[in-house]
């Protein structure tokens, strides 16, 4: 069996599982964010009285952090009350940041676990060898009542990465290239595993970006085999004992793709779909009114470090708003300790409180009609960040910072001295 199958077999209490099989799995941690008041509604509609295990449920208020309408405030209030009534202690309030980063910061993610959240980017946690997958409110409510959820065991696609990334090219460019080649629906109902020597050069932040974006090719989950980089990271933060599963040697993949990244150029996803991927050079000179650095895809300390390096002692272009949203309070504090935030503020960046912010077009940086935004986040759907006639280009944090400096899309490689 593949490691992913071993995780599901363990969670289902079965000796073995095969792709296509429907299994009912114990969920190790279920996370609800503040878009999903419906989770509580569904819980009661299904006859729920007490949650199955309050220690295995967490609420993270991140999408409306802090709330900008009365309704958002009411929804968050109801969630806090639910947590209090149900004895759910893992409530992370509006000061904490994006769920996927908060979970990692607090050591709640570990290899071999089944992690289910009301957020499509839960694939992020494949970076730790966890089975992370996104669901809707009613599925999550099912877990709250039963402790379990059904899954179809996914076929697994292998993406093998070899070679050496050129300067100015990052994990984000790699995954954009993969999505552009394979398409937004290539991995629907399937899992994506990353393998190969390039992973040894990727830190946890870059691995999270890779796994995060597999959602944009439809993947149910993603996987990177835990190694010494994973273990070192978990040693510092991890709270749980864990078991690392390894794939059998003869494990068959549904498909295999090898990428030599040595000649990869910076990529971007042009409007209005994430698989509309082009070499960034095709859009050099395109003016941008907003540059957005943040989210569960591109708002970690390493991303802020790159931006600070590019903007140190310089000024953001007067025609461009540069929004910086650390993914979490932990990220913000570390970036402050390292001086990155000070550098970015001095350069003219707008600092936004940790959270999802403008990524999903609800607040804190909405786009007007006709505006163009370059973003380190994950999506450029029509209307995603505001007006449907705004244009969104998805790129690496380096490309975002370089565009903020120049007021237009540029190759970031020339700004890394």
């Amino acid at each position: 069996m593949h490691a992913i199958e071993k995780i599901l077999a363990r969670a289902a209490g079965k000796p073995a599982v095969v792709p296509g099989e429907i299994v009912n799995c114990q969920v190790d941690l279920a996370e609800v964010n503040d878009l999903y008041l419906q989770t509580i509604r569904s819980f009661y509609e299904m006859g729920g009285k007490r949650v199955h295990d309050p220690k295995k449920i967490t609420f993270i208020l991140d999408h409306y952090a802090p709330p900008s309408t009365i309704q958002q405030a009411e929804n968050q209030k109801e969630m806090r009350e639910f947590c209090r009534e149900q004895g759910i202690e893992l409530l992370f309030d509006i000061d904490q940041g994006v769920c996927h980063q908060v979970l990692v910061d607090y050591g709640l993610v570990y290899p071999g676990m089944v992690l289910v959240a009301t957020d499509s980017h839960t694939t992020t946690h494949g970076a730790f060898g966890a089975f992370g997958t996104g669901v809707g409110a009613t599925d999550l409510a099912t877990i709250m009542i039963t402790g379990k959820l059904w899954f179809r065991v996914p076929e697994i696609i292998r993406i093998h990465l070899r070679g050496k990334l050129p300067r100015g090219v990052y994990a984000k460019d790699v995954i954009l290239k993969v999505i552009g080649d394979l398409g937004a629906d290539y991995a629907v109902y399937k899992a994506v595993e990353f393998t190969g020597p390039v992973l040894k050069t990727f830190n946890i932040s870059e691995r999270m970006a890779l796994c995060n974006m597999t959602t944009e090719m439809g993947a149910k989950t993603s996987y990177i085999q835990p190694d010494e980089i994973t273990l070192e990271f978990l040693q510092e933060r991890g709270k749980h004992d864990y078991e690392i599963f390894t794939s059998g040697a003869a494990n068959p993949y549904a498909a295999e793709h090898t990428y030599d990244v040595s000649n990869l150029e910076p990529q971007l996803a042009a409007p209005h779909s994430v698989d509309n991927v082009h070499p960034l050079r095709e859009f050099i000179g395109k003016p941008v009114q907003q540059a957005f650095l943040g989210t569960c895809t591109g708002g970690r300390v390493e991303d802020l470090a790159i931006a600070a390096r590019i903007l140190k002692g310089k000024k953001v272009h007067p025609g461009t708003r540069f929004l910086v949203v650390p993914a979490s309070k932990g990220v913000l504090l570390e970036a402050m300790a390292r001086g990155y935030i000070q550098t970015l503020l001095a350069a003219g960046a707008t600092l936004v409180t940790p959270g999802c912010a403008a990524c999903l077009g609800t607040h804190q940086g909405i786009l007007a009609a006709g505006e163009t935004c370059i973003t380190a986040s994950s999506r450029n759907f029509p209307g995603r960040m505001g007006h449907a006639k705004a244009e969104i280009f998805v790129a690496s944090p380096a490309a975002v910072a370089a565009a903020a400096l120049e007021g237009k899309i540029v190759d970031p490689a020339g700004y890394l001295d």
Partner: protein
Amino acid sequence: MQKVIRGRVFVYGANIDTDQIYPGRYLELTDPEEVSKHAMEGVDPGFAKEFQPGDIVVASTNFACGSSREHAAVALKAMGTGAILADSFGRIFYRNAINLGIPLLVCPHIHEVVKRGDMLKVDLTTGQVTNETTGATIQAQPLSEYVMTILESGGIKPLIKSQYGQKESIEG
């Protein structure tokens, strides 16, 4: 549960994401009636006015990809959507819609044999799809046994309620 569904068709293209089905700025709403007013607003602003209960949504590949927002399924459920047929679906939406009791059928090339306003007949038991306006027929993938169980129960909520319905006296 109705096993044969007949309705007028609304046809959409590939990669219609959940932001288009239900724009992010309305995510704070929870009342299904309120939610339904914004159904498909990002791709078809006239949808909520024109769509009648029992009508059918047809799309090309990867319908409802993207965000996990259940609002997308809630909106289409509250509109009285008879069925949704697409070449393929975003996986979270697939679960969400089935959980709410909306029949979803994977039907490769369906968008090629229907146009907006055609009358479609869908047999959920056999997967046989007939365009009654043109006479064309096409075969959808049959629903899995588990999915059929959920649909026959009227969605996952009645199913869970009957299996696990908790009483106040039961210790958590």
